[in-house]
């Protein structure tokens, strides 16, 4: 686990508010029973419509459509937008071309991950930043605190390192404008995210757009996008996604057009997919989820998660850089992907179950999913103990009083001795489909 300094941690307590439906809530109620809708990150979201496994297969074999309208979308604009984003995110924003997107992190000065994000450069001075729904209130508060000098004051800056000092003393407010792109105050510029993922995504899209649009969509490279209008719908079509599908798009539209787009994608053959399939797909692909494979209980850093390339230590400065430099070297843990038997009748592994190598606990399960007759799990484990192809076991933690009374442990530590309950093997960190 990364050793962090506490100084400079951004403290934020979110207000608890009743969960609300997304703009597509009415559509969900038409497609699935209310009992399959659950609260997620403050929104009422469908867990599944038909079943997780059917929706998972649809994305791997055909195309699925996901309600991502709960995702936070912020616009960072103004003549200092680039240097501001460069200073507050880990990746290299100045190297980001217009019409391209970049995966990155927002850290606080203590090196804690506040969120993992995607930055879309729409123009020289105009960026769209997509943040996790669960982190949106925190990120908005953080950005506002940075802009108004409430996070670090001039007093802090005097004692801070030179580059850090320059950053915190700068009057960003004059040259950076941040807008919530899902708030009605953004008017016609408002955007929400609907994802279309899977091998026949282009065919689906071709049924609702014109030839020039589909040609542009076809020509998109990973992490690039274009802005277009089809059938009266202004949108941003981006070759990004969270399913590991080689072909997949995120379409950003005005919330007033979201229902229309959603219906037309489904009419064109896309299968609506809920949060369950979203999770099993991203786990199968090896993609991290904030709070599980990033930050969370084990305080996992981007570098441990396999995303060192998105933390540009060559950059002169970004908030959290000095902390990252320290913990990047000290960690002896990493995120890995494993596969285990998953036929019917096999007890599924769960978060925090122990990872066992030669009778010793070397880490924990972070996330898991059943895919066909296998279970795929993302795990956090000691570096250098096992490589791809090696066998690995899992010890099930107690999940009920009766199991506890039979001596099963409720938590395990590294170095504890256990015999595994189920055995599988290490597979490649990521996979594309």
């Amino acid at each position: 686990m990364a050793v962090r300094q506490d100084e400079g941690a951004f403290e934020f307590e979110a207000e608890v508010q009743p969960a609300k439906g997304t703009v597509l809530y009415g559509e969900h109620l038409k497609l699935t029973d209310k009992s399959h809708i659950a609260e997620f990150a403050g929104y009422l979201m469908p867990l599944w419509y038909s079943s997780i496994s059917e929706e998972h297969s649809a994305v791997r074999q055909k195309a699925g459509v996901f309600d991502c309208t709960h995702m936070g979308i912020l616009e960072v604009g103004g003549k200092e937008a680039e240097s501001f984003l460069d200073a507050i995110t880990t990746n290299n924003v100045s190297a980001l071309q217009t019409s391209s997107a970049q995966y990155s992190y927002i850290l606080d000065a203590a090196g804690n991950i506040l969120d993992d994000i995607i930055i879309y450069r729409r123009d020289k001075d105009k960026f769209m930043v997509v943040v996790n729904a669960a982190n949106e209130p925190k990120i908005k508060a953080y950005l506002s605190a940075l802009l108004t000098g409430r996070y670090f004051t001039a007093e802090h800056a005097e004692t801070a390192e030179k580059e850090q000092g320059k950053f915190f003393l700068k009057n960003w407010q004059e040259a950076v404008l941040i807008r919530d792109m899902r708030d009605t105050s953004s008017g016609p510029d408002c955007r929400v995210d609907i994802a279309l993922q899977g091998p026949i995504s282009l065919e689906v899209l071709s049924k609702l757009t014109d030839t020039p649009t589909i040609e542009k969509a076809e020509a998109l490279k990973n992490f690039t996008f274009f802005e277009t209008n089809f059938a009266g719908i202004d949108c941003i079509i981006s070759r990004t996604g969270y399913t590991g599908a080689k072909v997949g798009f995120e379409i950003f539209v005005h919330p007033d057009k979201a229902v229309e787009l959603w219906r037309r994608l489904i009419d064109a053959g896309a299968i609506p997919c809920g949060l369950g399939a979203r999770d099993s797909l991203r786990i199968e692909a090896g993609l991290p989820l904030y709070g599980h494979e990033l930050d969370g209980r084990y305080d996992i850093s981007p570098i441990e998660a396999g995303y060192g390339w998105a933390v540009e230590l060559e950059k002169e400065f970004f908030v959290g850089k000095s902390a990252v430099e320290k913990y990047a070297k000290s960690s002896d843990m990493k995120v890995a992907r494993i596969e285990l038997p998953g036929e019917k009748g096999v007890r599924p592994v769960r978060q925090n179950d122990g990872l066992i190598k030669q009778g010793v606990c070397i880490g924990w399960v972070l996330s898991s999913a059943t895919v066909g007759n296998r279970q795929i799990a993302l795990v956090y484990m000691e570096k250098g103990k096992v490589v791809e192809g090696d066998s690995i076991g899992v010890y099930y933690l107690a999940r009920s009083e009766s199991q506890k009374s039979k001596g099963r442990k409720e938590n395990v530590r590294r170095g504890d001795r256990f015999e595994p309950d189920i055995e599988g093997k290490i597979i490649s960190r990521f996979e594309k489909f």
Partner: protein
Amino acid sequence: MVVKGLLYTKEHEWAKVDGDVAAIGITDHAQDQLGELTFIELPEVGKEVKQNGQLGAAESSKAASDVYSPVSGSITEVNEELKSKPELVNKDCYGAGWICKIRLTDKDSLKNLMDAGQYEEYLKGL
């Protein structure tokens, strides 16, 4: 779906009483909430259970739920088929997806259970 003639718990188990023996399972509402089941933990034959005591567990890849006993008694039989076919609980929770049979030791405790009409009302209030 709620079946007439069965008795129900607030934890969404059902009991079908036939003389001194009750067949036990989880309700349609419970299987629907859990999603595709991948594992059913069965109780041991011969074990004594109290009403509301833990019988076993039902797990899907995304959720796990303990199964509590609607009645007091001793386990006389378990549905071995669920070991390899937990999906029977999804497909036919009131029939082929039964979990175990219990010889009743305290028939009075049946009074604590809901009938089909009461359970239906209870579901509406959730």
